[in-house]
């Protein structure tokens, strides 16, 4: 009931405010963004309406047809990820496959995945090299540790958000509603994995690189001034496909699947290898596991 009153109030005011201000404003402006609810709270009809609105807005903006889906979590699904440190060669293919798949800003460059070059026998992140650039990888005396959102089960970023613009969806993926984020960046400060990224300026996506198949909580183009993050490519994974980083990895170091499915690849890894999670002492309970398959 409270929801309804709030909504109708917003609608009434949007009609008034929008009507008066819109007249003098550019056509491409998405006024309704100010008066929509959080995606999590929308009724199915509202979801459809919002998706339609955004499709129109994006298609207009990028001059090409863009679909925005709202596929919800599948039942009995909690996604998990495993990364084989003994196979990763540090080629950074995953980094850029992710950028292309997810319509990530090229200028400023945002990367969901950061590959750290580590010294053999050393887990101290402070000694890691983020900017290694040799002729050939892998290099001697090093191993590589890619870090991305760990999809914590106890995510510090969700609780700090002052406006409920980010939450953990039922399939365990921590998502951001780009239309509700106010850009305060408290979640960035709270993340122990540096997984959250901010659009310091209007994201630039080359026209020919645009991925037109998008999801509301996933890879639809972002706005300036909002936070985004890895979402396990949910526009793909909720349709039964692999994330882009898993697909591209030439070394087969990346494993992905449903933690609740005993037959899944991820369960196979968890049952057959010793795994660890990054900064486990912080009790963030990541669903992202590291392991070594080779000696």
């Amino acid at each position, binding site marked *: 009931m409270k929801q309804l009153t709030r909504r109708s109030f917003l609608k009434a005011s949007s009609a008034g405010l929008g009507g008066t201000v819109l007249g003098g404003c550019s056509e491409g402006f998405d006024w309704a963004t100010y008066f929509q609810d959080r995606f999590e709270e929308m009724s199915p009809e509202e979801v459809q309406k919002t998706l339609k609105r955004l499709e129109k807005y994006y298609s207009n903006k990028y001059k090409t047809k863009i679909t925005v889906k709202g596929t919800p979590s599948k039942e009995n699904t909690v996604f998990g990820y495993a990364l084989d440190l003994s196979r990763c060669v540090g080629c950074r293919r995953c980094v850029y496959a992710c950028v292309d798949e997810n319509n990530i800003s090229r200028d400023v460059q945002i990367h969901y995945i950061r590959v750290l070059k580590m010294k053999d026998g050393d887990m101290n992140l402070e000694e890691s090299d983020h900017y290694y650039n040799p002729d050939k990888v892998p290099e001697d005396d090093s191993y590589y540790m890619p870090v991305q959102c760990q999809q914590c089960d106890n995510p510090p970023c969700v609780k700090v958000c002052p*406006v409920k613009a980010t939450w953990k969806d039922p399939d365990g993926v921590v998502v951001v509603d780009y239309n509700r984020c106010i850009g305060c960046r408290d979640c960035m400060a709270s993340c122990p994995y540096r997984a959250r990224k901010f659009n310091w300026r209007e994201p630039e996506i080359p026209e020919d690189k645009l991925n037109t198949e998008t999801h509301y909580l996933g890879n639809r183009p972002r706005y*300036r001034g909002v936070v985004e993050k890895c979402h396990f490519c949910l526009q793909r994974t909720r349709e039964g496909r692999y994330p882009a980083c898993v697909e591209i990895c030439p070394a087969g170091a990346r494993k992905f699947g449903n933690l609740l499915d005993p037959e899944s690849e991820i369960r196979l890894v968890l049952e057959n290898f010793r795994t660890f999670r990054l900064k486990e002492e912080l009790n963030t309970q990541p669903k992202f596991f590291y392991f070594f398959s080779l000696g």
Partner: protein
Amino acid sequence: MTEQTAQVGELRYFLGNLFSVLFKGGRLYYAWLAGLSCLLVVGFISFIPQVRDGLAITNMREQVSWGFYISNFCFLVGVAAAAVLLVIPAYIYHFKAIKKIVAFGELLAITAVIMAITFVMVDTGRPDRFWHAFPILGSLNLPRSILGWDIVVLNGYLIINLIAVTYMATTTYFGKEPNKRLIMPLILLSIPWAIMLHSVTAFVFNGLAARPFWNASILAPRFLASAFCAGPSLMILVFQILRKVTKFEIRDSAIFKLAEIISYAMAINLFLLVAEVYKEYYSDTHHFAPMIYLFFGLHEHNNLVPWIWSAMVFNVIGFLLFLIPKTRKNFVTLNIGCVLLFVGIWIEKGMGLVIPGFIPDPLGEIYEYMPSQNEVLVAIGIYAFGAILYTMLARVLIAIDTGILRYRSAPPLVIDYDDGVVAQDIMSKGVLTVTPEATIDDIRSILVGNRISGVPVVDGENKIVGVVSETDMVFSLMHQDLELYEKFKSVMVPRERQRGGKLGKTAAEIMSSPAITARENTPLMELTEIITSRKISRIVIVDSQEHPVGVVSQIDIVKSQGLSPAPMQPEINYTI
């Protein structure tokens, strides 16, 4: 209809007067406003590129995602504590000298909170969506988000202070008595609220396990302690300016009381700092890295090192100036101390607190942050805006308090400083003085010849340098028998003044120095307090140049009470 016209007329009258209060002033006032407006315009122009291109024009990046703006936010939240510091002594301990100036502290709190909110607004990526953080209308994440709580507490503090000041000002304007049952709860509420404001702001940082530098439980107490230094330091400076450029009176004793509070708070602040540095230094884990970065530089990155050491030097020198009563009660050294503490804490609790939280970042990378030119100019603009706001608010308040701005049909303002009897009313005037070179014989003849028990000693410019009392005389005569002298001294002289009662032959040698003095307008209650607490029998009254103008002795105080005689009882109380 006529009533309405009358009301419109009153409104017009008020607005006209308000306009002249705000915009008519001396050359200095115009220069001040013009200078600040220029800075405000510069700040505004520097903000335009940020509106156009986004926060990319700042030097904040993914690694250091909060910078100069949030540093200043943090600091200003501390300044806002100033008000409560005045409220406590004024209303809890009924310290009258401070009561009158509480409103100016509250104005400072209002200004500081508005500036703090402005800093947050320029820092957020989508200030256009600020209403998402409104309760009910938006989707404020309570009770889980501490930042959400901070928004509530910050705005609550603003509202409480706004209501308190507006209510007091309005009742004064209309010449009505404020309803104490209405206003007192609000004023008392502001005390725990200010403490809450600082704790919650500290908790925003404190609660992030990802950032070991902030994830220390000492953070909230440190916030409070440093807040209780920076805010009042600024207020001491503001009050001196206010009483110089306006007719409004602010007594020295109020300022010294504030200075005393600062000295305690700073002692605690420094102690907490030492406790924190010790813990990180001695346990020497990876969590020490941000502190190494801050104080010594890490892997050749040392942008903040000169800043933090300047802050440390400022804080320690400032603390000493406040700690030593002699420098605390001298306006030159006091003001130096205020500036040092203000700047020192601005560095320590601003950039010194926020930036090292991000260095090294959670993946071990070091990105050195220094604000971009735009960030600095925008910040200057916001401070200029705050200064303009405070100037205007203070002017209106002073105009109301002095009756310049007043409802026409209100009863005439009785400028009731409510001090009752002051030193001037009861002191013995025409005070006799001696020079430091005066001999014991000279002094004795003055004391005996005039039947007085003590005499102030003045230098060549008639400034008071000490007092010679009968006790001092008695001791000076004992120089033949040192054993007797020691015995008498330990019995007769209160421990606090053991340094008095010296042996010697001239006034300079035997006087008690520095003299305990008070100004002409010191209320009787305060004089009594000084005389009883310092265990002296007379207090020399001085003017602003420290020239003695009178003496109030214990007997003057007793006489001032004008005791009515107890009625004579009849010998036999018998009626038929």
